Protein backbone atom coordinates (compact mmCIF):
# COMPACT_ATOMS: atom_id res chain seq x y z
CA UNK A 1 0.00 0.00 0.00
CA UNK A 2 1.13 3.53 -0.66
CA UNK A 3 1.96 5.38 2.56
CA UNK A 4 -0.09 8.46 3.54
CA UNK A 5 2.86 10.73 2.89
CA UNK A 6 5.90 9.89 0.82
CA UNK A 7 8.56 12.49 0.17
CA UNK A 8 11.19 11.43 -2.34
CA UNK A 9 14.34 13.32 -3.25
CA UNK A 10 12.69 16.69 -2.55
CA UNK A 11 14.78 19.63 -3.67
CA UNK A 12 13.81 23.26 -3.18
CA UNK A 13 15.70 26.21 -4.60
CA UNK A 14 14.95 29.63 -3.14
CA UNK A 15 15.67 32.98 -4.76
CA UNK A 16 17.85 35.17 -2.56
CA UNK A 17 19.59 38.51 -2.94
CA UNK A 18 22.78 36.59 -3.72
CA UNK A 19 21.17 34.39 -6.32
CA UNK A 20 19.30 31.08 -6.16
CA UNK A 21 20.16 28.80 -3.25
CA UNK A 22 19.34 25.15 -2.99
CA UNK A 23 17.83 24.97 0.49
CA UNK A 24 16.59 21.39 0.43
CA UNK A 25 19.03 19.02 -1.18
CA UNK A 26 17.25 15.72 -1.63
CA UNK A 27 14.98 15.01 1.33
CA UNK A 28 13.24 11.62 1.51
CA UNK A 29 10.98 10.10 4.15
CA UNK A 30 7.62 8.37 4.48
CA UNK A 31 4.84 8.52 7.05
CA UNK A 32 1.72 6.41 7.38
CA UNK A 33 -1.66 6.95 9.03
CA UNK A 34 -1.47 6.66 12.80
CA UNK A 35 2.30 6.99 12.70
CA UNK A 36 4.48 9.71 14.13
CA UNK A 37 7.66 11.09 12.61
CA UNK A 38 9.95 13.66 14.18
CA UNK A 39 12.08 16.07 12.14
CA UNK A 40 14.92 17.43 14.22
CA UNK A 41 17.55 19.97 13.29
CA UNK A 42 18.96 23.38 14.09
CA UNK A 43 18.11 26.65 12.44
CA UNK A 44 18.87 26.54 8.74
CA UNK A 45 18.72 22.74 8.56
CA UNK A 46 15.64 22.88 6.33
CA UNK A 47 13.12 21.32 8.69
CA UNK A 48 10.60 24.17 8.56
CA UNK A 49 11.10 24.54 4.83
CA UNK A 50 10.21 20.87 4.47
CA UNK A 51 6.95 21.55 6.33
CA UNK A 52 6.20 24.58 4.14
CA UNK A 53 6.78 22.48 1.01
CA UNK A 54 4.27 19.90 2.22
CA UNK A 55 1.69 22.63 2.74
CA UNK A 56 2.42 24.39 -0.54
CA UNK A 57 3.40 27.57 1.29
CA UNK A 58 6.85 28.10 -0.18
CA UNK A 59 7.86 31.69 -0.91
CA UNK A 60 7.26 33.18 -4.33
CA UNK A 61 9.81 32.07 -6.91
CA UNK A 62 10.81 28.85 -5.15
CA UNK A 63 11.61 25.98 -7.51
CA UNK A 64 10.65 22.48 -6.44
CA UNK A 65 11.80 19.17 -7.83
CA UNK A 66 11.36 15.63 -6.58
CA UNK A 67 8.10 14.26 -5.32
CA UNK A 68 5.64 14.73 -2.47
CA UNK A 69 3.02 11.99 -2.59
CA UNK A 70 0.08 12.54 -0.28
CA UNK A 71 -2.75 9.99 -0.19
CA UNK A 72 -2.13 9.09 -3.82
CA UNK A 73 -1.86 12.68 -5.10
CA UNK A 74 1.33 14.36 -6.28
CA UNK A 75 1.41 17.64 -4.35
CA UNK A 76 4.19 19.23 -6.37
CA UNK A 77 1.91 19.08 -9.43
CA UNK A 78 -1.13 20.73 -7.79
CA UNK A 79 -2.08 24.30 -8.58
CA UNK A 80 -2.82 26.87 -5.86
CA UNK A 81 -6.54 26.27 -5.92
CA UNK A 82 -6.26 22.53 -5.48
CA UNK A 83 -3.67 23.02 -2.76
CA UNK A 84 -6.05 25.39 -0.95
CA UNK A 85 -8.72 22.72 -0.90
CA UNK A 86 -6.26 20.31 0.68
CA UNK A 87 -4.67 22.64 3.19
CA UNK A 88 -6.62 22.84 6.44
CA UNK A 89 -8.94 20.10 5.17
CA UNK A 90 -6.71 17.07 4.92
CA UNK A 91 -3.49 18.60 6.23
CA UNK A 92 -3.72 20.42 9.56
CA UNK A 93 -1.01 22.72 10.85
CA UNK A 94 0.13 23.92 14.27
CA UNK A 95 2.79 26.61 14.41
CA UNK A 96 5.19 27.75 17.11
CA UNK A 97 3.78 31.05 18.23
CA UNK A 98 0.07 30.81 19.03
CA UNK A 99 -0.31 34.56 19.49
CA UNK A 100 0.61 35.32 15.90
CA UNK A 101 -1.31 32.35 14.52
CA UNK A 102 -4.57 33.70 15.97
CA UNK A 103 -6.45 36.83 15.00
CA UNK A 104 -6.49 39.14 18.03
CA UNK A 105 -9.73 40.84 16.90
CA UNK A 106 -11.90 37.72 16.63
CA UNK A 107 -13.22 35.38 19.29
CA UNK A 108 -11.66 31.94 19.29
CA UNK A 109 -15.07 30.47 18.48
CA UNK A 110 -15.34 32.53 15.32
CA UNK A 111 -11.87 31.45 14.25
CA UNK A 112 -12.62 27.76 14.70
CA UNK A 113 -15.90 28.15 12.80
CA UNK A 114 -14.11 30.00 10.00
CA UNK A 115 -11.75 27.05 9.54
CA UNK A 116 -14.75 24.73 9.14
CA UNK A 117 -16.64 27.02 6.77
CA UNK A 118 -13.57 27.26 4.57
CA UNK A 119 -14.09 23.68 3.51
CA UNK A 120 -17.58 22.56 4.50
CA UNK A 121 -21.20 23.70 4.31
CA UNK A 122 -22.47 23.89 7.86
CA UNK A 123 -25.29 25.75 9.56
CA UNK A 124 -24.28 28.38 12.12
CA UNK A 125 -25.70 26.34 14.96
CA UNK A 126 -24.02 23.13 13.85
CA UNK A 127 -20.67 24.88 13.41
CA UNK A 128 -20.97 26.47 16.85
CA UNK A 129 -21.80 23.12 18.37
CA UNK A 130 -18.81 21.50 16.65
CA UNK A 131 -16.46 24.27 17.74
CA UNK A 132 -17.53 23.66 21.31
CA UNK A 133 -16.84 19.92 20.93
CA UNK A 134 -13.41 20.68 19.47
CA UNK A 135 -12.47 22.90 22.42
CA UNK A 136 -13.53 20.09 24.73
CA UNK A 137 -11.43 17.66 22.74
CA UNK A 138 -8.35 19.80 23.24
CA UNK A 139 -9.18 19.86 26.95
CA UNK A 140 -9.90 23.54 27.22
CA UNK A 141 -11.34 24.28 30.65
CA UNK A 142 -14.85 25.87 30.48
CA UNK A 143 -14.91 25.23 26.76
CA UNK A 144 -18.38 26.66 26.13
CA UNK A 145 -17.60 30.02 27.76
CA UNK A 146 -14.18 30.17 26.07
CA UNK A 147 -15.76 30.19 22.61
CA UNK A 148 -16.54 33.85 23.25
CA UNK A 149 -13.03 34.66 24.54
CA UNK A 150 -10.46 36.68 22.60
CA UNK A 151 -6.91 35.32 22.29
CA UNK A 152 -5.47 37.89 24.73
CA UNK A 153 -7.78 36.57 27.45
CA UNK A 154 -6.16 33.13 27.27
CA UNK A 155 -2.83 31.85 28.55
CA UNK A 156 -0.13 30.66 26.15
CA UNK A 157 -1.02 27.01 26.66
CA UNK A 158 -4.72 27.71 26.12
CA UNK A 159 -3.99 29.63 22.92
CA UNK A 160 -1.99 26.73 21.60
CA UNK A 161 -4.97 24.48 22.40
CA UNK A 162 -7.12 26.76 20.26
CA UNK A 163 -4.62 26.54 17.41
CA UNK A 164 -4.72 22.75 17.70
CA UNK A 165 -8.53 22.84 17.69
CA UNK A 166 -8.42 24.85 14.46
CA UNK A 167 -5.97 22.37 12.93
CA UNK A 168 -8.35 19.54 13.82
CA UNK A 169 -11.51 21.35 12.66
CA UNK A 170 -11.82 19.30 9.49
CA UNK A 171 -10.44 16.00 10.82
CA UNK A 172 -7.25 16.05 8.72
CA UNK A 173 -5.31 12.93 7.75
CA UNK A 174 -1.99 14.54 8.48
CA UNK A 175 -1.06 16.95 11.28
CA UNK A 176 2.09 19.02 10.89
CA UNK A 177 3.28 20.56 14.16
CA UNK A 178 6.23 22.94 13.71
CA UNK A 179 7.83 23.63 17.11
CA UNK A 180 4.38 23.56 18.73
CA UNK A 181 5.63 24.00 22.28
CA UNK A 182 8.80 26.05 21.97
CA UNK A 183 7.08 29.19 23.24
CA UNK A 184 5.53 27.45 26.24
CA UNK A 185 6.67 26.72 29.81
CA UNK A 186 8.06 23.25 30.44
CA UNK A 187 5.06 22.02 32.43
CA UNK A 188 2.60 23.34 29.84
CA UNK A 189 4.82 21.98 27.07
CA UNK A 190 4.36 18.50 28.45
CA UNK A 191 0.57 18.87 28.61
CA UNK A 192 0.34 20.09 25.02
CA UNK A 193 2.61 17.31 23.71
CA UNK A 194 0.57 14.73 25.61
CA UNK A 195 -2.59 16.19 24.11
CA UNK A 196 -1.22 16.02 20.56
CA UNK A 197 -0.07 12.43 21.13
CA UNK A 198 -3.52 11.43 22.45
CA UNK A 199 -5.34 13.09 19.55
CA UNK A 200 -3.09 11.39 17.00
CA UNK A 201 -3.67 8.03 18.60
CA UNK A 202 -7.44 8.42 18.82
CA UNK A 203 -8.03 9.87 15.36
CA UNK A 204 -5.45 7.82 13.50
CA UNK A 205 -3.86 10.88 11.86
CA UNK A 206 -0.26 10.88 10.78
CA UNK A 207 1.87 13.32 12.80
CA UNK A 208 4.92 15.20 11.56
CA UNK A 209 6.47 16.81 14.64
CA UNK A 210 9.22 19.35 14.03
CA UNK A 211 11.55 20.48 16.79
CA UNK A 212 15.10 21.53 17.58
CA UNK A 213 14.90 19.81 20.96
CA UNK A 214 16.02 16.19 21.19
CA UNK A 215 14.30 15.86 24.54
CA UNK A 216 10.90 16.71 23.07
CA UNK A 217 11.33 13.98 20.49
CA UNK A 218 12.57 11.19 22.73
CA UNK A 219 9.25 9.77 23.87
CA UNK A 220 6.84 11.34 21.38
CA UNK A 221 7.64 9.96 17.96
CA UNK A 222 8.11 6.47 16.55
CA UNK A 223 10.58 7.52 13.88
CA UNK A 224 13.13 10.28 13.90
CA UNK A 225 14.79 12.09 11.00
CA UNK A 226 17.80 14.27 11.79
CA UNK A 227 18.26 17.14 9.31
CA UNK A 228 21.39 19.11 8.59
CA UNK A 229 22.22 21.46 5.74
CA UNK A 230 19.05 20.66 3.80
CA UNK A 231 19.40 16.88 3.93
CA UNK A 232 18.30 14.09 6.24
CA UNK A 233 21.60 12.83 7.66
CA UNK A 234 20.11 10.05 9.77
CA UNK A 235 16.69 8.47 10.15
CA UNK A 236 15.31 5.46 11.88
CA UNK A 237 13.12 4.20 14.72
CA UNK A 238 13.54 6.69 17.61
CA UNK A 239 14.94 4.25 20.20
CA UNK A 240 17.50 2.96 17.70
CA UNK A 241 18.58 6.46 16.68
CA UNK A 242 19.10 7.38 20.33
CA UNK A 243 20.91 4.12 21.05
CA UNK A 244 23.14 4.09 17.98
CA UNK A 245 23.74 7.81 17.24
CA UNK A 246 25.21 6.73 13.94
CA UNK A 247 25.92 10.12 12.33
CA UNK A 248 28.62 12.35 13.83
CA UNK A 249 26.15 15.27 13.80
CA UNK A 250 23.57 13.29 15.78
CA UNK A 251 26.32 12.45 18.27
CA UNK A 252 27.33 16.10 18.55
CA UNK A 253 23.75 17.27 18.97
CA UNK A 254 23.25 14.73 21.69
CA UNK A 255 26.46 15.46 23.57
CA UNK A 256 26.11 19.25 23.43
CA UNK A 257 22.92 19.27 25.43
CA UNK A 258 23.38 19.42 29.21
CA UNK A 259 21.26 16.72 30.82
CA UNK A 260 19.78 16.71 34.28
CA UNK A 261 21.94 14.68 36.58
CA UNK A 262 24.67 14.69 33.93
CA UNK A 263 26.92 16.68 36.17
CA UNK A 264 26.63 14.34 39.14
CA UNK A 265 26.51 15.27 42.79
CA UNK A 266 30.09 16.56 42.89
CA UNK A 267 30.69 19.60 40.73
CA UNK A 268 33.80 19.28 38.70
CA UNK A 269 35.20 22.76 38.21
CA UNK A 270 36.89 21.98 34.91
CA UNK A 271 33.95 20.13 33.38
CA UNK A 272 33.01 21.29 29.92
CA UNK A 273 30.19 20.60 27.56
CA UNK A 274 31.18 18.86 24.37
CA UNK A 275 30.68 21.33 21.54
CA UNK A 276 30.40 20.99 17.81
CA UNK A 277 33.06 23.37 16.47
CA UNK A 278 31.98 26.12 14.06
CA UNK A 279 28.39 26.95 13.41
CA UNK A 280 25.37 25.94 11.42
CA UNK A 281 26.39 26.79 7.87
CA UNK A 282 24.74 29.45 5.85
CA UNK A 283 22.90 27.81 2.95
CA UNK A 284 24.65 30.02 0.45
CA UNK A 285 28.10 29.08 1.76
CA UNK A 286 27.06 25.47 1.73
CA UNK A 287 26.21 25.73 -1.93
CA UNK A 288 29.53 27.41 -2.72
CA UNK A 289 31.31 24.36 -1.39
CA UNK A 290 29.10 22.43 -3.75
CA UNK A 291 29.63 18.73 -3.48
CA UNK A 292 30.35 16.69 -0.43
CA UNK A 293 28.86 16.18 3.00
CA UNK A 294 27.23 19.31 4.47
CA UNK A 295 28.65 18.52 7.90
CA UNK A 296 32.24 17.98 6.71
CA UNK A 297 33.51 21.37 7.93
CA UNK A 298 32.45 20.76 11.51
CA UNK A 299 33.09 17.05 11.70
CA UNK A 300 36.00 15.67 13.73
CA UNK A 301 36.12 12.48 11.67
CA UNK A 302 36.37 14.17 8.30
CA UNK A 303 38.54 12.64 5.55
CA UNK A 304 39.28 13.91 2.04
CA UNK A 305 36.59 11.75 0.47
CA UNK A 306 33.94 13.62 2.54
CA UNK A 307 34.43 16.71 0.35
CA UNK A 308 34.07 14.88 -2.94
CA UNK A 309 30.46 13.71 -3.15
CA UNK A 310 27.39 13.71 -0.91
CA UNK A 311 27.56 10.50 1.09
CA UNK A 312 25.03 7.81 0.21
CA UNK A 313 22.71 6.38 2.81
CA UNK A 314 24.25 3.54 4.76
CA UNK A 315 21.97 0.98 6.37
CA UNK A 316 22.92 0.81 10.05
CA UNK A 317 19.98 -1.24 11.32
CA UNK A 318 16.44 -2.26 10.42
CA UNK A 319 14.81 0.76 8.72
CA UNK A 320 17.66 2.86 10.13
CA UNK A 321 20.05 4.71 7.83
CA UNK A 322 22.68 7.40 8.04
CA UNK A 323 24.56 9.41 5.43
CA UNK A 324 28.19 9.22 6.46
CA UNK A 325 31.24 7.72 4.84
CA UNK A 326 32.87 6.94 8.15
CA UNK A 327 30.24 4.47 9.29
CA UNK A 328 31.34 0.89 9.19
CA UNK A 329 28.08 -0.70 8.22
Amino acid at each position, binding site marked *: MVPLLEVANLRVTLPTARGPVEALRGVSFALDRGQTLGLIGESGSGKSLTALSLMGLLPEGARVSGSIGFAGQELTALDDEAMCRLRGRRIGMVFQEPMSALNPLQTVGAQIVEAMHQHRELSRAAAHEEAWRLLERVQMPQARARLEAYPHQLSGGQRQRVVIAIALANSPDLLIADEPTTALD*ATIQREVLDLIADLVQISGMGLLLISHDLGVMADRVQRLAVMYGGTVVEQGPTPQVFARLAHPYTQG*LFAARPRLGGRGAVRDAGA*RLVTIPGRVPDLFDLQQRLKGCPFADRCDRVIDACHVAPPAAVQVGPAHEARCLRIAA
Partner: protein
Amino acid sequence: MNPAAPPLLQAQDLGKRYRLPRRTLLSAAPEVQALDDVSFTLHQGRSLGVVGESGSGKSTLARLVMALETPSSGQVRFEGRELVRLPAAALRRARGDLQMVFQDPYGSLDPRRTVEQTVCDPLALLADAPRAAERHVRVDERRARAVEALSAVGLREADLDKYPHEFSGGQRQRIAIARALITRPKLIVADEPVSALDVSVQAQVLNLMADLQATLGLTYLFISHDLAVVEWVCDEVLVLQSGRVVERGPTARVFSEPQHAYTKRLLAAVPGRPV
Protein backbone atom coordinates in the same frame (compact mmCIF):
# COMPACT_ATOMS: atom_id res chain seq x y z
CA MET B 1 38.73 37.49 49.90
CA ASN B 2 38.24 39.49 53.07
CA PRO B 3 35.85 37.47 55.24
CA ALA B 4 34.53 40.64 56.90
CA ALA B 5 33.54 42.18 53.55
CA PRO B 6 29.81 42.20 52.84
CA PRO B 7 28.61 39.61 50.28
CA LEU B 8 28.55 40.82 46.70
CA LEU B 9 24.79 40.63 46.47
CA GLN B 10 22.25 40.24 49.22
CA ALA B 11 18.47 40.36 49.05
CA GLN B 12 16.40 40.67 52.20
CA ASP B 13 12.65 40.08 52.39
CA LEU B 14 12.40 41.46 48.91
CA GLY B 15 8.89 42.17 47.64
CA LYS B 16 7.42 43.91 44.61
CA ARG B 17 3.80 44.75 43.94
CA TYR B 18 2.50 45.99 40.63
CA ARG B 19 -0.76 47.87 40.26
CA LEU B 20 -3.12 46.47 37.65
CA PRO B 21 -5.63 48.52 35.66
CA ARG B 22 -8.87 49.17 37.52
CA ARG B 23 -11.64 46.78 36.51
CA THR B 24 -14.43 49.33 36.94
CA LEU B 25 -14.36 53.09 37.16
CA LEU B 26 -14.77 53.46 40.91
CA SER B 27 -13.20 50.30 42.32
CA ALA B 28 -9.75 50.36 43.82
CA ALA B 29 -7.02 49.22 41.43
CA PRO B 30 -6.12 45.58 42.13
CA GLU B 31 -2.50 44.73 42.79
CA VAL B 32 -0.40 41.71 41.95
CA GLN B 33 2.36 40.55 44.23
CA ALA B 34 5.04 39.76 41.66
CA LEU B 35 7.69 39.00 44.26
CA ASP B 36 7.11 38.20 47.91
CA ASP B 37 9.59 37.93 50.75
CA VAL B 38 12.61 36.74 48.74
CA SER B 39 15.97 36.56 50.51
CA PHE B 40 19.31 35.24 49.31
CA THR B 41 23.03 35.86 49.50
CA LEU B 42 25.37 35.58 46.54
CA HIS B 43 29.13 35.63 47.10
CA GLN B 44 31.71 36.80 44.64
CA GLY B 45 32.71 34.19 42.04
CA ARG B 46 29.62 32.04 42.59
CA SER B 47 26.56 31.38 40.42
CA LEU B 48 23.00 31.45 41.62
CA GLY B 49 20.27 30.03 39.41
CA VAL B 50 16.68 31.20 39.48
CA VAL B 51 14.10 28.81 38.04
CA GLY B 52 10.33 28.89 37.77
CA GLU B 53 7.61 29.16 35.15
CA SER B 54 6.69 32.36 33.37
CA GLY B 55 4.95 34.66 35.81
CA SER B 56 6.88 33.26 38.77
CA GLY B 57 8.78 36.52 39.27
CA LYS B 58 12.15 35.63 37.73
CA SER B 59 12.44 38.74 35.60
CA THR B 60 11.05 41.00 38.34
CA LEU B 61 13.86 39.75 40.54
CA ALA B 62 16.39 40.60 37.81
CA ARG B 63 15.00 44.14 37.48
CA LEU B 64 15.20 44.71 41.24
CA VAL B 65 18.78 43.42 41.41
CA MET B 66 19.77 45.68 38.52
CA ALA B 67 18.18 48.63 40.40
CA LEU B 68 15.89 49.25 37.45
CA GLU B 69 12.93 49.22 39.84
CA THR B 70 12.40 50.07 43.48
CA PRO B 71 11.24 47.25 45.74
CA SER B 72 7.87 47.62 47.48
CA SER B 73 9.37 46.03 50.57
CA GLY B 74 12.72 44.70 51.70
CA GLN B 75 16.01 45.62 50.07
CA VAL B 76 18.79 44.57 47.72
CA ARG B 77 22.35 45.30 48.76
CA PHE B 78 25.26 45.24 46.33
CA GLU B 79 28.58 45.21 48.20
CA GLY B 80 26.64 46.34 51.25
CA ARG B 81 25.06 49.38 49.58
CA GLU B 82 21.43 49.72 48.71
CA LEU B 83 21.69 50.86 45.10
CA VAL B 84 18.22 52.33 44.67
CA ARG B 85 18.92 54.74 47.55
CA LEU B 86 22.10 56.11 45.97
CA PRO B 87 21.99 59.56 44.39
CA ALA B 88 21.64 59.44 40.61
CA ALA B 89 25.32 60.09 39.80
CA ALA B 90 26.56 57.49 42.25
CA LEU B 91 24.05 54.96 40.99
CA ARG B 92 25.21 55.57 37.44
CA ARG B 93 28.79 54.86 38.43
CA ALA B 94 27.80 51.78 40.39
CA ARG B 95 26.01 50.41 37.36
CA GLY B 96 29.35 49.64 35.73
CA ASP B 97 29.70 46.82 38.26
CA LEU B 98 26.44 45.19 37.21
CA GLN B 99 25.70 44.14 33.68
CA MET B 100 22.95 42.20 32.04
CA VAL B 101 22.76 39.69 29.19
CA PHE B 102 19.37 39.12 27.62
CA GLN B 103 17.68 36.20 25.93
CA ASP B 104 17.28 37.37 22.38
CA PRO B 105 20.55 38.14 20.58
CA TYR B 106 18.53 39.53 17.68
CA GLY B 107 16.47 42.02 19.68
CA SER B 108 19.20 43.14 22.07
CA LEU B 109 21.61 44.51 19.44
CA ASP B 110 20.85 47.66 17.44
CA PRO B 111 21.03 46.63 13.75
CA ARG B 112 22.17 50.11 12.66
CA ARG B 113 25.18 50.37 14.92
CA THR B 114 28.52 48.70 14.47
CA VAL B 115 29.75 46.15 16.96
CA GLU B 116 32.23 48.71 18.29
CA GLN B 117 29.51 51.28 18.97
CA THR B 118 27.34 48.68 20.69
CA VAL B 119 30.09 47.13 22.75
CA CYS B 120 31.49 50.50 23.88
CA ASP B 121 28.15 51.94 24.95
CA PRO B 122 28.43 51.00 28.62
CA LEU B 123 31.75 52.89 28.86
CA ALA B 124 29.71 56.07 29.06
CA LEU B 125 28.90 54.95 32.60
CA LEU B 126 32.52 55.23 33.55
CA ALA B 127 33.09 58.74 32.20
CA ASP B 128 33.04 60.13 35.73
CA ALA B 129 34.15 57.01 37.52
CA PRO B 130 35.90 57.46 40.84
CA ARG B 131 38.46 54.79 40.08
CA ALA B 132 41.42 56.69 38.68
CA ALA B 133 42.31 53.91 36.27
CA GLU B 134 38.93 54.13 34.60
CA ARG B 135 38.44 57.88 34.48
CA HIS B 136 38.41 59.45 31.04
CA VAL B 137 38.14 56.43 28.85
CA ARG B 138 39.36 58.12 25.68
CA VAL B 139 38.61 57.22 22.10
CA ASP B 140 41.77 55.22 21.48
CA GLU B 141 41.34 53.52 24.82
CA ARG B 142 37.77 52.71 23.94
CA ARG B 143 38.93 50.77 20.96
CA ALA B 144 41.50 48.90 23.03
CA ARG B 145 38.88 48.04 25.63
CA ALA B 146 36.51 46.85 22.92
CA VAL B 147 39.22 44.61 21.44
CA GLU B 148 39.92 43.22 24.90
CA ALA B 149 36.24 42.46 25.50
CA LEU B 150 35.79 40.92 22.07
CA SER B 151 38.82 38.69 22.40
CA ALA B 152 37.54 37.51 25.79
CA VAL B 153 34.49 36.11 24.02
CA GLY B 154 36.46 34.67 21.11
CA LEU B 155 35.82 37.31 18.44
CA ARG B 156 38.38 39.30 16.46
CA GLU B 157 39.28 42.98 16.18
CA ALA B 158 38.12 42.94 12.56
CA ASP B 159 34.61 42.19 13.83
CA LEU B 160 34.41 45.62 15.49
CA ASP B 161 33.46 47.39 12.28
CA LYS B 162 30.78 44.91 11.25
CA TYR B 163 27.05 45.12 11.85
CA PRO B 164 24.94 42.61 13.81
CA HIS B 165 23.34 41.08 10.71
CA GLU B 166 26.73 39.74 9.67
CA PHE B 167 26.80 37.40 12.66
CA SER B 168 25.07 34.17 13.60
CA GLY B 169 22.88 33.88 16.70
CA GLY B 170 25.69 32.43 18.80
CA GLN B 171 28.14 35.13 17.72
CA ARG B 172 25.57 37.81 18.51
CA GLN B 173 25.21 36.46 22.00
CA ARG B 174 29.00 36.66 22.29
CA ILE B 175 28.78 40.31 21.28
CA ALA B 176 26.12 40.89 23.93
CA ILE B 177 28.41 39.26 26.50
CA ALA B 178 31.34 41.40 25.31
CA ARG B 179 29.17 44.49 25.85
CA ALA B 180 28.50 43.30 29.39
CA LEU B 181 32.21 42.65 30.05
CA ILE B 182 33.56 45.98 28.83
CA THR B 183 32.99 47.80 32.12
CA ARG B 184 34.76 44.94 33.93
CA PRO B 185 31.67 44.16 35.99
CA LYS B 186 31.53 42.08 39.14
CA LEU B 187 28.03 40.75 38.65
CA ILE B 188 26.31 39.61 35.47
CA VAL B 189 22.58 39.06 35.49
CA ALA B 190 21.84 36.66 32.65
CA ASP B 191 18.16 36.34 31.76
CA GLU B 192 17.71 33.16 29.66
CA PRO B 193 21.05 33.77 27.88
CA VAL B 194 21.05 30.57 25.81
CA SER B 195 17.35 29.84 25.35
CA ALA B 196 17.21 31.34 21.87
CA LEU B 197 20.34 29.59 20.60
CA ASP B 198 20.75 26.39 18.63
CA VAL B 199 21.72 23.39 20.73
CA SER B 200 25.23 23.07 19.31
CA VAL B 201 25.82 26.78 19.90
CA GLN B 202 24.32 26.75 23.42
CA ALA B 203 27.15 24.53 24.55
CA GLN B 204 29.76 26.95 23.17
CA VAL B 205 28.21 29.91 25.01
CA LEU B 206 27.83 27.97 28.28
CA ASN B 207 31.49 26.94 28.12
CA LEU B 208 32.45 30.55 27.41
CA MET B 209 30.52 31.75 30.46
CA ALA B 210 32.28 29.14 32.61
CA ASP B 211 35.70 30.20 31.27
CA LEU B 212 34.98 33.88 31.94
CA GLN B 213 33.92 33.07 35.46
CA ALA B 214 37.15 31.17 36.06
CA THR B 215 39.44 33.83 34.58
CA LEU B 216 37.67 37.05 35.62
CA GLY B 217 36.06 35.90 38.86
CA LEU B 218 32.61 36.88 37.62
CA THR B 219 29.49 36.29 39.64
CA TYR B 220 26.33 35.17 37.84
CA LEU B 221 22.70 35.52 38.66
CA PHE B 222 21.41 33.09 36.08
CA ILE B 223 17.74 33.05 35.20
CA SER B 224 16.38 30.19 33.15
CA HIS B 225 13.47 27.86 32.72
CA ASP B 226 15.85 25.16 31.52
CA LEU B 227 16.71 23.07 34.57
CA ALA B 228 19.46 21.10 32.86
CA VAL B 229 21.27 24.32 31.89
CA VAL B 230 20.87 25.71 35.42
CA GLU B 231 22.26 22.52 36.88
CA TRP B 232 25.24 22.82 34.58
CA VAL B 233 26.01 26.47 35.36
CA CYS B 234 24.92 27.15 38.93
CA ASP B 235 26.27 26.26 42.36
CA GLU B 236 23.00 27.08 44.05
CA VAL B 237 19.44 27.49 42.91
CA LEU B 238 16.27 29.29 43.99
CA VAL B 239 12.95 27.84 42.88
CA LEU B 240 10.33 30.57 42.50
CA GLN B 241 6.60 29.97 42.37
CA SER B 242 4.18 32.91 42.17
CA GLY B 243 6.85 35.25 43.51
CA ARG B 244 7.83 33.14 46.51
CA VAL B 245 10.92 31.00 47.06
CA VAL B 246 9.58 27.48 47.56
CA GLU B 247 12.93 25.72 47.61
CA ARG B 248 16.61 26.61 47.63
CA GLY B 249 19.95 24.91 48.04
CA PRO B 250 22.92 23.46 46.18
CA THR B 251 21.74 22.76 42.64
CA ALA B 252 22.76 19.12 42.55
CA ARG B 253 20.90 18.39 45.77
CA VAL B 254 17.74 20.33 44.95
CA PHE B 255 17.45 18.60 41.58
CA SER B 256 18.31 15.09 42.79
CA GLU B 257 16.22 15.24 45.99
CA PRO B 258 13.52 17.85 45.44
CA GLN B 259 11.46 18.48 48.56
CA HIS B 260 8.72 20.83 47.36
CA ALA B 261 5.88 19.56 45.17
CA TYR B 262 6.41 22.41 42.71
CA THR B 263 10.10 21.57 42.21
CA LYS B 264 9.11 17.95 41.65
CA ARG B 265 6.58 19.05 39.05
CA LEU B 266 9.15 21.20 37.23
CA LEU B 267 11.60 18.30 37.17
CA ALA B 268 8.96 15.85 35.99
CA ALA B 269 8.16 18.18 33.10
CA VAL B 270 11.71 18.16 31.76
CA PRO B 271 11.11 16.54 28.38
CA GLY B 272 12.33 12.97 28.05
CA ARG B 273 15.77 12.36 29.43
CA PRO B 274 17.12 10.12 26.71
CA VAL B 275 19.88 7.78 27.78
